[in-house]
């Protein structure tokens, strides 16, 4: 996880990490280079300044010396030219006493004999002028020149300007004037141009300090100084090396004073010079630091401004990554980032439209999958139901088939029964015909009774017997009719059953139903007829009984009842008619039974066919059941497919739903 997720370092940090070190290095280089350049410049400048300072000092000192020497020479020349001596010379010397601060004692003259001529007010004393420094040095030149520093008789540290006074006096005379070293020191130190620079004057011949801001050093020797710096300076001066040089951390310049052996030494501590450089360096460092900070802030700001759109872009892209396409990108800058933003915005729009379409499609798909699922369920249900129905139908058809088989059996049985009934009917018919024949003979007999009433008595017995026989026959008839009634009942029942079965068989059994109805009606009619017969037979029986009784009574009352016999005859006739009718009916019935037989046979045949058809129907129905089962299983798999489809559609929907695209796209 940690390896995958790289640590995110912002562009800002990266840029700063690159730019700042570079800038710091550049700044440091710059400061360093500038420091060294400015160090050189300041050093050169300081050198020039010291140079010009010491030059100016030199000029000032030279001018000061020149001025005084010129004054002395002027005095000397006037003495030489005028050849002044005695009072005149004294007057001249007196006039220069206090004439100038630089040489307050004025000029004085010594001769080879040790005579000293000086201004009257001068306090100068000299035990032996010829042994004085000024005299001895003055002897070496005619033009007045400066002596080395010395301490005069008054104890003052001075230098003198002295020279031979060529006054044609016949004596060697030296004229001289004293300049104090304090005065020279003041002159030297007054003309230092450079701040914090120091200067002192030294004789290059013996290293005597002629002028120094520290009066204690005046007229001491550099070579004997305890100060290493001064000793080093002497080292250089004694070698006539007057180039500017750094000695003991002092920038030191040398200048020879023209017309003398003097060397003006001016120096300035380098730390004074470099303090400027250090302040410049510090200033540069400060500026550098401020620049770096400013730059850092500037870069930070600029980068911040520049990458702000990128950050927004990142937000947008992050949102997009999380599926949120509702985000918007502000119209960006006109740079590459702006262009990028534009393209991302386009991308978002495109994605939004695409997702919206996918949404729609997935919705539809879901819907369709739902529908399809529902339909497939319904279909499954339907096909299941159908299968069930088909199985039921199958069962029914099976039953039907069985029923038809039964019908066929029944019909066969019926046909057989009917054939039997026909036989019985024929027997009844023959019996009826016998009955008719008997009735006729009875009628004839009765007519004979009627005719032969007298014989009645005799014949009554016979009659009685005949009646008995009639009674017996009636009973037999009754028995037969009962049988017929039974048959009719059975037929009726059969026909009912047949009707029912026919009705079950539908169209196929429709014709059969008609037959069954007919058979039913026939059976009913047969039954009615049988009842009628039974009623009639009962009547006959009762009539016969009555007849017997009446016969007996008639027998007893034959005499009384000849009319009765006539009635009886009539009655007999109607009986006869009735029997005739019965016979007709029976024949009719036989015919009908024959028809029934025919029909029953047909029924049987049809039933057979029907049974065969039923078998086929059964087979068909079974194959239908199988097919329905197939359909069911198919529709089940369809249903499963639909379910899967629905699930997929839902999944798709869920996936797509993760993308937010706002209302704008029409979701």
């Amino acid at each position: 996880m940690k390896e995958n997720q790289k640590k995110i370092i912002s562009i800002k940090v990266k840029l700063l990490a690159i730019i700042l070190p570079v800038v710091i290095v550049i700044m440091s280089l710059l400061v360093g280079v500038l420091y060294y350049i400015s160090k050189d410049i300041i050093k050169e400048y300081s050198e020039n300044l010291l140079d010009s300072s010491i030059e100016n000092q030199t000029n000032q000192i030279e001018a000061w010396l020149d001025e005084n020497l010129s004054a002395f020479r002027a005095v000397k020349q006037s003495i030489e030219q005028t050849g002044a001596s005695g009072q005149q010379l004294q007057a001249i010397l007196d006039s220069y006493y206090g004439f100038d601060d630089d040489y307050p004692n004025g000029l004085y003259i010594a001769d080879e004999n040790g005579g000293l001529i000086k201004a009257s007010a001068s306090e100068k004393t000299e035990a032996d002028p010829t042994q004085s420094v000024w005299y001895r040095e003055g002897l070496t030149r005619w033009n007045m020149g400066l002596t080395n520093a010395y301490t005069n008789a008054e104890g003052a540290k001075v230098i003198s300007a002295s020279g031979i006074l060529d006054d044609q006096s016949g004596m060697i005379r030296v004229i001289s004037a004293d300049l104090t070293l304090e005065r020279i020191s003041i002159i030297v130190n007054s003309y230092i141009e450079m701040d914090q620079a120091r200067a002192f004057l030294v004789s290059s011949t013996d290293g005597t300090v002629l002028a120094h801001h520290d009066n204690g050093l005046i007229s001491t020797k550099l070579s004997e100084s305890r100060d290493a710096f001064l000793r080093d300076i002497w080292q250089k001066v004694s070698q006539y090396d007057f180039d500017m040089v750094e000695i003991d951390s002092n920038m030191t310049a040398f200048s020879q004073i023209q017309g003398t052996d003097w060397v003006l030494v001016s120096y300035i501590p380098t730390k004074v010079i470099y303090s400027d450089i250090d302040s410049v360096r510090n200033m540069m460092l400060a500026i550098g630091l401020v620049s770096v900070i400013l730059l850092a802030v500037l870069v930070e700001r600029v980068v911040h401004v520049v990458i702000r759109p990128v950050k927004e872009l990142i937000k947008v892209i992050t949102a997009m990554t999380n599926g949120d396409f509702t985000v918007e990108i502000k119209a960006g800058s006109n740079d590459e980032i702006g262009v990028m933003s534009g393209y991302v915005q386009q991308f978002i729009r495109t994605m939004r439209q695409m997702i919206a379409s996918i949404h729609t499609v997935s919705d539809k798909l879901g819907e369709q999958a739902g529908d399809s699922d529902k339909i497939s369920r319904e279909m499954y249900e339907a096909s299941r139901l159908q299968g069930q129905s088909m199985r039921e139908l199958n069962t029914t058809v099976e039953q039907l088939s069985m029923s038809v088989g039964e019908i066929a059996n029944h019909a066969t049985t019926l046909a057989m029964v009917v054939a039997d009934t026909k036989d019985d009917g024929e027997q009844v018919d023959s019996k009826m015909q016998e009955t008719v024949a008997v009735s006729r003979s009875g009628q004839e007999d009765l007519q004979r009774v009627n005719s032969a009433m007298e014989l009645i008595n005799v014949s009554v017995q016979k009659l009685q017997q005949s009646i008995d026989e009639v009674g017996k026959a009636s009973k037999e008839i009754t028995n037969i009719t009962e049988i017929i009634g039974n048959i009719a009942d059975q037929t009726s029942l059969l026909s009912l059953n047949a009707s029912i079965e026919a009705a079950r068989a539908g169209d196929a059994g429709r014709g059969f139903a008609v037959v069954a109805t007919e058979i039913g009606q026939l059976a009913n009619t047969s039954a009615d007829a049988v009842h009628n017969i039974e009623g009639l037979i009962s009547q006959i029986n009762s009539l016969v009984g009555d007849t017997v009784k009446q016969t007996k009574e008639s027998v007893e009352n034959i005499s009384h009842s000849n009319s009765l016999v006539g009635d009886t005859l009539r009655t007999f006739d109607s009986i006869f008619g009735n029997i005739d009718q019965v016979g007709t009916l029976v024949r009719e019935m036989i015919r009908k039974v024959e028809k029934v037989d025919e029909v029953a046979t047909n029924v049987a045949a049809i039933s057979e066919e029907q049974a065969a058809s039923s078998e086929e129907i059964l087979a068909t129905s079974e194959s239908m059941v199988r097919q329905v089962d197939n359909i069911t299983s198919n529709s089940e798999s369809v249903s499963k497919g639909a379910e899967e489809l629905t699930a997929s559609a839902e999944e798709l929907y869920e996936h797509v739903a993760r993308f937010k695209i706002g209302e704008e796209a029409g979701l």
Partner: protein
Amino acid sequence: MRGKSCMKRYISVWLAIVLLICAVPGCGQSAARGRGGVKIFFALNQMDTFRQTLVDGAAEQAAQAGAQFAMEDAQGSIERQVEQLKKAAAENYDVIICSPVSVDTAVQLKMSVGDVPIVFVNSCPDEKYLQEGKYIYVGSSEQVAGAFQAEYVLSKLSGRQEFNVVLIKGPASHSATVGRTSGVKRVLEESGKQVHYVFEDSAGWDTAQAQKLFELFLKTGVSADCVICNNDAMALGVMEACRNNGIDCSTLPILGVDATADGCEAIRNGEMAFTVYQSGSGQGHAAVDAAIRLVETGSVKDVEGSTEDGRYVWVDFERVDSSNVSQYDQ
């Protein structure tokens, strides 16, 4: 890895920048002119015998080097010299050889010629006005002349640990005076001997003044073991004073500088002991050599006699005494 390649890139970019910066000025210097094409202008302050030898030597050397050479004489006028230099600059002379009317006009002279380099001869401007490769001085070091004098004295008085020296100097502020005097003093000082400067004064190059001063010195009664003069003219004055005071000049070494005709004559006569010959033609030759080198390479450091700072080319003086005086006698 990435950091490293970044660093490499940075370094290479910086190197490229540095190279570019370095390369640009490098194209600047090139010797545009051929040796034969160098145009030299000689601005003379005023003609005299010595300077004639200087000019002749320069002309001769220029002709030998195939350089163009022109000379004009300012006849002692600063204004005329400035005018001549401006003209020379306008006429595209490559280099000026100038013996200034006054060394104090060096700045004005430099301004007059603009960028054209100047080889100063005969009188040397202050060191601060010279600049390596641009404004140089060709001449003989006055100190050397003084040193030659001192060396002669030392050899002459080699047996003495202590001796008296009379110094007759030129004008106090004159560079030749300063140089020659310091040359004498330093060498004598370095010898470790007790040297007494019993008389030291300026006679302003003047024979009569020198004579007067030396006579004055003689009055002091101090003995002198040698008389060193900054030039031959003053030495002649000293000799005159000797003659007037009955001093045999051959017993007193009198030294001068310049090897003038009179000086050489005095040497031949045995009156003057030693002089130093300043080679006018040698300076002329050296001036032209330095001028051409300056134009061609911008530096005279490889010219014989040049100093380390490249501001001076020193032409040797020549010692003249009785042994070789005939070579210098005209």
